[in-house]
């Protein structure tokens, strides 16, 4: 590793860290969703371009100090994948909370309206 590479690798890592944060800390609501969708679109478009112009990725990778074009794509894929994993997980937790609230509402409504919670059967404390 010579001095040039260290510098470029720092730049590269910083870029990916910023990109990562943008994806991994999505804002809720319309703006967050739009950003995620645009990111996905960008990724798809980049993938298509990379297929059409395979040497392009190599050039870009060389500029950034990454070995090959495919390596660059792989790094990008990893960042995007992690972003979606975290987003999806957060979404599921939100859904869980909603389901819990619904189930609890049902449980309590049933309990307060159905008679058998209020009145135990005859054989209470048979002594």
């Amino acid at each position, binding site marked *: 590793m010579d001095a040039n590479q260290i510098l470029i690798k720092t730049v590269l890592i910083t870029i990916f860290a910023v990109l990562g944060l943008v994806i991994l800390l999505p804002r809720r609501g319309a703006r967050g969703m739009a950003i995620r969708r645009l990111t996905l679109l960008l990724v798809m478009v980049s993938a298509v371009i990379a297929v059409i112009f395979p040497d392009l990725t190599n050039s870009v990778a060389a500029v950034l100090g990454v070995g090959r074009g495919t390596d660059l794509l792989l790094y990008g894929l990893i960042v995007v994948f992690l972003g979606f994993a975290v987003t999806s997980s957060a979404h599921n937790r939100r859904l*869980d909370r909603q389901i819990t609230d619904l189930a609890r509402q049902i449980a309590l409504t049933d309990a307060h309206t159905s008679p058998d919670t209020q009145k135990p059967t005859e054989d*209470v*404390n048979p002594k």
Partner: protein
Amino acid sequence: MDYESNDTTRGGSPMSTGMSAADRAIAERTWLVIPLFNEATVVGDVIRHATETFPHVVCVDDGSTDDSADAARRAGAHVVHHPINLGQGASLQTGLRYALSDTDAEYFVTFDSDGQHRVEDALDMVRRLATEPVDIVVGSRFLDGRTKPGAIKRLVLKAAVVFQNVTSGVRLTDAHNGLRALSRDAASSIRVTQNRMAHASEIVNEIGRLKLRYAEQPVHIIYTDYSRSKGQSVWNSVNIISDLIFK
């Protein structure tokens, strides 16, 4: 034998002659909240024994697939049914909500359905709520030498205690004790959003967040073969910690 006649639309009646009048008055304003999931073999006995002291018991049937809910009802408990299995934390929150709807209720005890908790400990804790300036009394296995869990479990619990003290600012000696007595204030302000086993740590965090006045009570947990086989595995620590981080 003395029979204390009680309002028959309520649950069981306290028949213990050993209770003082003061204790009976306190117990009359207390609800036991018992999360219930597939404990048909023991829950009936647990509730029958509990209702000798505490007349108001609510069992939250968390989608049991066996006879538990029926057994609980026959034994004298109010039963609230979760339409799907949500977890012990969710069951506690549902049970507390149900009990809070009784406007006469002042004290609430979270109590296990498998016979690990002692009714005497619960009564001692509620009495402290009534006589001392505390909002919540939490049981601890480690204040005296009564309880003897296995060595590995003890080590993991000690580590959990340190983690909990650091993250919540609440100093407890037992991180995961299911026996708790809450005042009405505590019961209505604590929000349990962790449905599964992380709820125990969440409750401690809530104590810290709400700045509740807390105290610990030495309790004896009865580890029978039955309860040991059902108990929480040490592996669950991983799940609990990750639940709390990614809440």
